[in-house]
């Protein structure tokens, strides 16, 4: 299954700083077994623009559509057998401690349209 992993900041990161995991080790490990398909890092949320069209009129506003303290900083596309495997991949990501991760499967298009 393909999972998109949203990497977000969190207002309460882990206070235990003993074991620092680094992102290079994480990437190398999951590239080697083919679980990390792609990663993208986002520009700061100050660079975000929201676009809507209502009754034919274009509405362009500054900033992300959801005004929260926690922001998405990057995302990774993962290939995992199931949720438990995806959770194990997320567990060792440095931002699991420094922030929070949301893992969400991509919808199975054939199943959705069937």
């Amino acid at each position: 299954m393909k999972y998109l992993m949203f990497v977000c900041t969190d207002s309460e990161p882990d206070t235990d700083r003993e074991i620092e995991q680094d992102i290079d080790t994480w990437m190398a490990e999951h590239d080697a077994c083919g679980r990390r398909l792609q990663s993208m890092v986002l520009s700061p949320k100050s660079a975000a623009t929201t676009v809507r069209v209502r009754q034919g009129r274009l509405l362009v506003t500054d900033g992300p559509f959801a005004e929260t303290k926690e922001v998405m900083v990057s995302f990774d596309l993962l290939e995992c057998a199931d949720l438990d495997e995806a959770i194990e991949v997320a567990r060792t990501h440095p931002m699991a401690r420094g922030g929070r991760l949301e893992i969400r499967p991509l919808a199975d298009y054939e199943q959705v349209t069937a």
Partner: protein
Amino acid sequence: VTEALPVAAASAVAAAGAESYSRIVAGLIRVTGKWTLAEECAQEALALALERWPKEGVPASPNEWLMTVARNRAIDNLTEAGAERGVLGELAALSLGETEPVGADAGSAAMVDDRIRLIFMCCHPALPFEARMVLTLRTLCAVPIANIAKALLVTEAVLNRCLTQAKAKIADAGIPNRMPSGPALTERLRCVLSVLHALFIHGHDAKGEPAFSEEAICLARLLQRLMPGQSEVSALLALFLFQDSRREARRDPDGRRITLETQDRTRWDADAIAEGMTILSRVSPEGPYGLQARIAACHATATSPKETDWREIAICYDELARIQSTPAIELNRAVAHSYAYGAAVGLALLAEARAGAGLDDYPHSLAAGVDLTPRPDDRLRRHIVTAGRHRRS
């Protein structure tokens, strides 16, 4: 095959159902991944048994008879739907053969009982907690929706929606039908045990007794048999047995609750207590449930509140407070110390807990733990009442 009286046949169906329903459902879910199909096929097998066994007699292997019927129903259903041959072949091979218990290094075990896989699936932390309870009750214990709804004080429509959403999440999110391995096993086992514990204490029947304590005990027995190396599983079963041993002594004839220290201890179930002690003696109970079981064992084996081993209880609460400090634990710890070493020690601990905001936002600070903790002396009680009253200040 012998002719059977209708009543005898009906009780044979009930007995075979109790023994094999969850195994049939678990096996069908593993192979097909279809929950509703699995439950429907198992229920149809029971319905057919109720119809046939009174006329044709109870078959020599009632459990296998049920499995065969359920399996064939599933095969028919999936053949119609154009299922793959592999799935159909696996279905045809499904039987109720005993599987080996899983050792402490469980991950390597190739043959894991289907019910174990299913319970880890039902109690997956990615599901809402209530859904875990409902799925477990419905799928593994075959409790009717109406009974679950009544005990959990929700409507059947709400429960059905909860079940539908949980099953959709399992399919969409890819929650697997397998037992976790490595470090995840300990964490996930904790999730399973917390669901069983919630089943044991949550929801009440008409008499005010926990509605699903029997189901929880039954599941704990199953886990203990299939995962004998896990001391927290054994400890939880022992804890259940100690608490359940007081079932008959807990209420007066009018249904009013009798506190632990005024209960008639001769009415406690001595067999359940002895079984709990034997189970506990075989493991090293150092985890949260182990410590709670040790505390419950002290109460269960004491001839009177005074004769209770309060020092052992105080030690257990110290350890519990260290690993998972909660207001209830802090409060009970203070009480245990007051009995073991005098009210001054208990009061000091209580003051400490209040200073550390340990009792803030603690609702029902008195009602909780009533069953385990005898009432403290008056001076201490006044302080606890005050602590409870000022919790929001």
